[in-house]
């Protein structure tokens, strides 16, 4: 009787003891005490049973069986000289190669060099599944710029450069990683899915590259227009300045001539 009372005091309303017993994560003595109490106490026995039922229901909560297949990619930094080559004058650039070797405005070349250098020292986690990495998936598709180039446009384009450079490296490295993983008994279906995903990402990358080139070309045209407009304004200012000089020179002579005429 005394032992039962002790169990009542220790177990009834003692949620920690019930939970420890429910998950079978308690000291043997405590477990024995709770078991003995539950055998006699209908309320606690019902509590344990309903909590166990609730746990049993939780088993049904499944997570989506999505393909993950994350892979770490690490890219090496390019030698600074090579990076600088990207930013060199157009006359010294090779005509072969990627889009970054095409004639670009100086600011774009400098931005690209900075971005490529920074991306070269980074690591990234890519997903070799049916979709591009989340960071890539969220990258906005470059849109043709209809308005004159502004500082904000340039900032956005730099971000696009960063994403594109990182994406290109990720895709290049993903090919290597895929080749190495095939040696680790990758299922054929999984392999096919990953190859398909890479192809899809490659196509998407090409599309975005074209969009980026279009954006850069538009920006270059706008920049050239602005430069032309600036030259025109400067020429007009020069004209005005010369006119002012001429006026200041001629005006006294006119004044003298007028005075002489009126004197006559």
């Amino acid at each position, binding site marked *: 009787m005394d032992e039962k009372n002790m169990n009542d005091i220790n177990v009834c309303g003692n*949620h*920690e003891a*019930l*939970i*420890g017993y429910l*998950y079978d*994560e308690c000291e043997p003595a405590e477990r024995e005490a709770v078991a003995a109490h539950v055998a006699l106490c209908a309320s606690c026995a019902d509590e344990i049973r*309903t*909590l*166990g*039922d*609730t*746990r*049993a*229901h*939780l*088993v*049904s*909560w*499944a*997570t*989506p069986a*999505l393909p*993950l*297949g*994350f*892979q*770490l*990619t*690490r890219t090496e930094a390019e030698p600074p000289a090579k990076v600088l080559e990207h930013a060199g004058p157009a006359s010294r650039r090779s005509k072969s190669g990627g889009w970054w070797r095409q004639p670009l405005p100086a600011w774009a070349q400098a931005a690209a060099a900075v971005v490529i250098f920074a991306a070269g020292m980074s*690591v*990234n*986690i890519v*997903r070799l599944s049916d979709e591009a*990495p*989340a*960071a890539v998936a969220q990258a906005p598709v470059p849109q043709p710029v209809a308005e004159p180039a502004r500082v904000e446009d340039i900032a956005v384009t730099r971000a696009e450069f960063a994403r594109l450079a990182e994406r290109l490296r990720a895709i290049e490295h993903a090919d290597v*990683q895929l080749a*190495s*993983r095939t040696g*680790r008994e990758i299922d054929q279906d999984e392999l096919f899915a990953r190859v398909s995903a890479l192809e899809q990402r490659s196509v998407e990358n090409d599309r975005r590259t074209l969009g980026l080139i279009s954006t850069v070309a538009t920006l270059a045209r706008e920049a050239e227009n602005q430069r032309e407009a600036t030259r025109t304004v400067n020429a007009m200012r020069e004209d005005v300045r010369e006119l002012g000089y001429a006026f200041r020179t001629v005006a006294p002579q006119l004044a003298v001539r007028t005075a002489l005429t009126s004197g006559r």
Partner: protein
Amino acid sequence: MVSDVTRSDEELVTRSRGGDVDSFNQLILRWERPIYALAYRVIGREEDARDVCQETFLRAYRSLAGFKGQAKFSSWLYRIALNLCRDWIRRQRRAPVSQFPEDVDVLEAAAATEPAESIEDLVARRELSAVVEEAMTLLPEEQRTAIILKEYHGMTFQEIADLQGCPLSTVKTRLYQGLSVLRRQLERQGQTVPQMVTPRLRSGSS
């Protein structure tokens, strides 16, 4: 020669610290599914859970130098993931969203098909899964996380306490209160919980 597959987490961590990318990728292969499951159940959105999973491994790799091995690698990984989940929840400022359609009467759809135990079982499971997921969203974040770590990741009370940064007794209280709320929620939705599933699940293990 020992392959990466048979190496322990600690060995792979050591090799990863030395610059072995393959070893870290083996750790990813080993833990990406549990981490994704944790993120999905905590925040309730597939794509965001994948992002959290991705970011977890990226941060883990970048912080490898700071991992001294005082805890299990998996516990350290879980901690990173949970912190990211908390950040996500703070950003969203709203409860996780159930992605199960609520307007589809799966039982009715199943009744229109040829009676077959396996189909009914599948439908019942999906329905129950949706009910459980919805009930879980009603729990406070701490209780929900404690239940997720216990029920779906098999952690001990002490491991959960370490991850949540609280006393052992608090973990037990959170589990008790969380399970009690869930029980009431499931009872309220008892009409939608297929009765044919309950007895089988009752006899099943957790």
